């Protein structure tokens, strides 16, 4: 029922109010310090910043993000299935076979990612250095 979600909406407002009000109070009563050039530089352990601030980072992070999207969508499918499973499995095993075919296909995809070393963080594609751990 939609009106069940009114309290959720009120809680959202309360959460936003808390975050905004604490930041506002801090701005109002916080002590003001002097400004200087050094204060405005990025923190690099006291040295002047070197090079570009957005450094290049491993492509593995991108792979993990893609795999997450794939797997997380499967999880959402499984919730709807899990809720009705116990009632329906009495009548026929169709719900059993259909979902476990799905999980099987998912698992093949998982094995593919595993064999491609998508989860191996010590392995860099194109280099011949052996895996350490």
């Amino acid at each position, binding site marked *: *029922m939609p*009106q*069940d*979600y*009114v*309290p*959720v909406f*009120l*809680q*959202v407002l*309360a*959460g*936003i109010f*808390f975050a*905004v009000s*604490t*930041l506002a*109070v*801090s701005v109002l009563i*916080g*002590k*003001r*310090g002097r400004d200087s050039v050094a*204060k*405005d*530089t*990025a*923190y*690099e*352990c006291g040295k002047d910043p070197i090079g570009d*601030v*957005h*450094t290049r*980072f491993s492509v*593995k*992070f991108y792979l*993990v993000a893609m*795999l*997450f999207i794939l*797997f*997380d969508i499967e*999880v959402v499918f*499984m*919730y709807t299935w*899990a*809720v*009705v*499973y*116990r009632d329906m*499995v*009495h009548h026929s*095993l169709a719900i*059993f076979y259909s979902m*476990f075919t799905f*999980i099987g296909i998912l*698992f093949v995809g*998982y094995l593919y990612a595993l064999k491609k070393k998508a*989860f191996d*963080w010590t392995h860099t594609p194109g280099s011949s250095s052996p895996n350490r*751990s």
Partner: protein
Amino acid sequence: MITPYFANMPADVPGWVPDVFITLIKIFILVNVILGLVSYTVMAERKISAAIQDRIGPNRTGVPLGGVNILGLFTMPRWSIWGLGQPLADALKFMLKEEFTPAHVNKFYFWLAPAMAMVPALLTICVIPFASSHPVVLPFFDYTMKAPGVIADVGIGVLLIFAIASLGVYGIVLAGWSSNSKYPFLGGIRSSAQMISYEVSMGLSVIPLFLVMGNLRLSDVVQYQVDHGWTVLPFLAATWPWHNGASYLLWLPMLISFLIFLVSAFAETNRLPFDLPESETELVGGYHTEYSAMKFALFFLGEYAAMIVASSLMVTLFLGGWSLPLPFYMAWQDQWWSIPIYAFVFLLKMLLFIVLFIWVRWTLPRFRYDQLMSLGWKFILPISLANIVLTGILLAIVG
């Protein structure tokens, strides 16, 4: 749908007004309880870590304004009460520090990020039942509370928690990216990869529970545990449950679910041994290196609030929520005065997990990043998938 009215309410006030009013009071109480808990969890962390390392910990800051004469009437005593005034002093200090925004950051996202880290943790608590959901009649008001023990008794409970909790990643990513600095940037991408990796395992780990219970509404999850025994301790039910053999057959997958959920909860809340996003020895402060004052405090509070939410969720899903296996205790459900008692029991169970979180932090060393990722993707993910299959087969056999 909405029938209750205050006794002497004018006839032209619509029926939903008292409901919204009561909900606002509940939200006010709950948010304040959470914030108080957060402050004293920080305090407990400092005290317990001190005990583990054979130190004393903060023990001086007690009654505020100690020794100061208030308006010439009386002098505040200089009691140190084991340092219990420390959280108040910490909060004041965060507010009084300079609210500094460095020149090199993306201003809007830099300010948005701390709020994005704090707000989801405060939101998710609204679907967790901290007391019974039986309707109770409030005395003096002649008003029936439909679900007194929870703010929003929605049918998708757990799904809503996962949906909102995953918004917490944005706070950290935005903080890392908008800081325009190297350490926060590295901390931010590390953290996001870690959190999304373990989010998959976390989502998969509770599916066996819902295969068994067939309901996502958290108040019904607690009711199921009242009838069939707690998820991880199936012999603890309000009625004597030995006749219910299926609970014991399903015990193994439930235990696996619990362990996976526990490990994922540590990773999701960025606690040791998974605190890679802010590992001091490598990344200075991680994603909040450039933050100070209240903006930093919001990250800090958000992390502890997430820990409290994770503990509450584990209590609700695995340890029977507010229930106890005592028939007379469960018989209080229709009385209005039972709500604080149930909430207190819930709080005690939750504190068990909070102490566990703290204890683990000061006992175990930190993982290396590749170990963290291997554990998540190569070990926990296949096991949680296998656990779903196992539960499905068991249920197909015993029904």
